[in-house]
């Protein structure tokens, strides 16, 4: 059961990255490849706030959310908005990711820093397995986040406007939606989220400059499995990727962990090309 808990916790971290990808995808129809690096910055800011400055965890969460939110807003202004061709955004966001990692390396170096979890770091036994409190909280956070964002997208005006933008950007604009403003706010929100989540991700992964690179690809795989634009899909995708990785490492061998994940991705995409939780739309020809 310890392996199951481990797989679920790591899957939850991947899913959190994928949620960030999804929010940008819904609002801009593109991907922010710097999302995982924003989360890495969140972990570092949490480390600085809790360990170096010894601030209360809730204040650190707010501080990280604001700082990383501002960085994401800056990224949108520099790496997204000036770019005319949508295809080039893949390159510019990847560039932003490399810059963020380089900055983290320069400031904090390549060594990992331990980020204490505010609710304790003692291992607990649950359902026959051992788990850190933060791992349970990560699973809970991702589930609550998906439920909350789903409800927000269905019942709030901003959420409905964002969903409208994702369906048809021009139609939404014609209906009076300020698409550029909403896209900017959604982008900045993913930064706020990545910063705040440093409270939960940092204690699991440590604050380390290579974290962005470790998470970026797996987050994308989670997104592809669950379906681009589907928040519920990120839950299923995270669970599948996390558990596959853990069980393959345990019972087949670590060399087959990534192979198994990508094999499952291929099988799922062959069966459902748009991902598990996306309906294929018929095209009018």
């Amino acid at each position, binding site marked *: 059961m310890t392996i199951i808990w481990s797989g679920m916790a790591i899957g939850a971290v991947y899913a959190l990255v994928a949620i960030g990808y999804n929010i940008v995808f819904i609002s801009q129809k593109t991907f922010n490849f710097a999302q995982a690096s924003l989360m890495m910055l969140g972990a570092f800011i949490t480390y600085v706030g809790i360990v170096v400055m010894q601030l209360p965890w809730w204040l650190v969460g707010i501080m990280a959310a604001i700082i990383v939110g501002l960085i994401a807003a800056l990224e949108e202004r520099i790496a997204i908005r000036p770019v005319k061709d949508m295809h080039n955004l893949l390159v510019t966001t990847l560039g932003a990711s490399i810059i963020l990692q380089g900055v983290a390396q320069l400031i904090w170096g390549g060594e990992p820093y331990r980020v*204490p979890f505010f609710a304790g770091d003692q291992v607990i036994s649950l359902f026959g397995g051992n788990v850190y409190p933060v791992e349970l909280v990560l699973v809970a956070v991702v589930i609550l986040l998906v439920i909350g964002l789903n409800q927000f997208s269905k019942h709030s005006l901003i959420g409905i406007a964002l969903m409208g933008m994702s369906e048809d950007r021009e139609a939404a604009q014609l209906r009076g939606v300020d698409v550029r403003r909403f896209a900017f706010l959604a982008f900045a929100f993913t930064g706020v989220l990545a910063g705040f989540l440093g409270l939960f991700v940092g204690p699991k992964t440590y604050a380390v400059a290579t974290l962005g690179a470790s998470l970026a690809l797996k987050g994308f795989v989670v997104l592809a499995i669950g379906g681009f634009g589907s928040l519920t899909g990120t839950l299923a995708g995270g669970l599948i990727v996390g558990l596959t990785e853990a069980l393959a490492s345990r019972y087949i061998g*670590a060399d087959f*962990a990534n192979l198994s994940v990508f094999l499952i991705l291929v099988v799922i995409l062959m069966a459902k090309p748009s991902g598990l939780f996306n309906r294929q739309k018929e095209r009018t020809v």
Partner: protein
Amino acid sequence: MRFGKAKSLVASMAVLGLALTGCANSASSAEGAGDGDGSLKVLVLGGLGAEGILANNAATSVTAAEASVAAVNEAGGILGKKLEIEVIDDRADPTVAVTKLREKLAEGEKPVAVMNSGPSTVAEAILPVLMQKQILSFNIGPTETSTDPSVNPLNFDLSPSVQDYIDGFVPEIQKKKYEKVAVLHGSSATGELFGKLTEEAFTSSGLKVTGNEGYDNAALDMTPQLEKLKSSNPDALVLDSYGAPLAYVLQGIEKLGWDIPVIGNNSVSATSLVATDPPAGVLGTSQVKNLTMQVFESTKFDPKNEKLNAAVKLMAETGTIGSSLILAYNYDAMWLLKSAAESSNSLEAKNIAEALLDSKVQEAAQTQILPKYAFTSESHAPHMEPEHLIFISPSKMVNGQFQ
């Protein structure tokens, strides 16, 4: 009068001739490199401008070289000539290293030696250039051929081989009376080699290897591999791990509640996390209660070792010791150079290289980081005796030494 003039002319020519002969003798006795002003130049390459840990490692290597130059000059220099050090920041990038090295060599002044503090990729790139120019070199980043005298007769590696480190594990495991061991290693080339060679060495020593697992260096959780190894019921776990993966391995062991002795290699000891107090590190926590790590004797502070302590003090005064003292080989390199040059009474790279193979020359160098380098005509790699590799529990690190 005319005869007198002729006599004085002959005498003058004879004096001039003798003077020229004297100069020629002097030149041939210490030929090969050096500056017009009588100083000798040593080039040190290091990735000072690289990112993260590479910069820390380079800072330690460069500091060690600078401190040793000061110490060697204090001891009279080499063959009466003072050493001058020039540092090239190659950013741990082979292209930058080759470009800057070629620029320096094109300036016309031939260095007496070049010291590479950077990774193997830099060594791979610069060694052919140094070979072409017939320049003596000392190298920290081993390559496939860096220790092969038939390929690089003028290069000497300073870091012991993976096999030397592994040979140090066997006596430790036997001393502790462990019979069954499990191995966990990373997916880097060194990690894979560690996994392969440890299994071979342990098996040939009569130890039972109950499991040998690798992990992806980009993975964030090693609990599955650890649980698999736990189920094989070993007496001890031999570990290769560095940086964030080490943090995840220690987390995994704690999570599994696995009370097993963990014997880490030098990569484990080079990770600052284990030498840092909580909350930033894990020193003194339950995660490292069973951990011992392989280090050089010189990496552990010994108040009785006055020569080493003086060297460390000098390094600390000279610059930054950003990593463990394991990266301070350049301190030894300068003394090896002095000993070999003075033994051969020459600054010719070929003569110094020949002298470096003499064990008496190596002993006379009185190196501090490694006690002896044991270069041979078959291999220009240092050979480290197992007794010079010790196993210690994590502790605070001060000036590159565990306290």
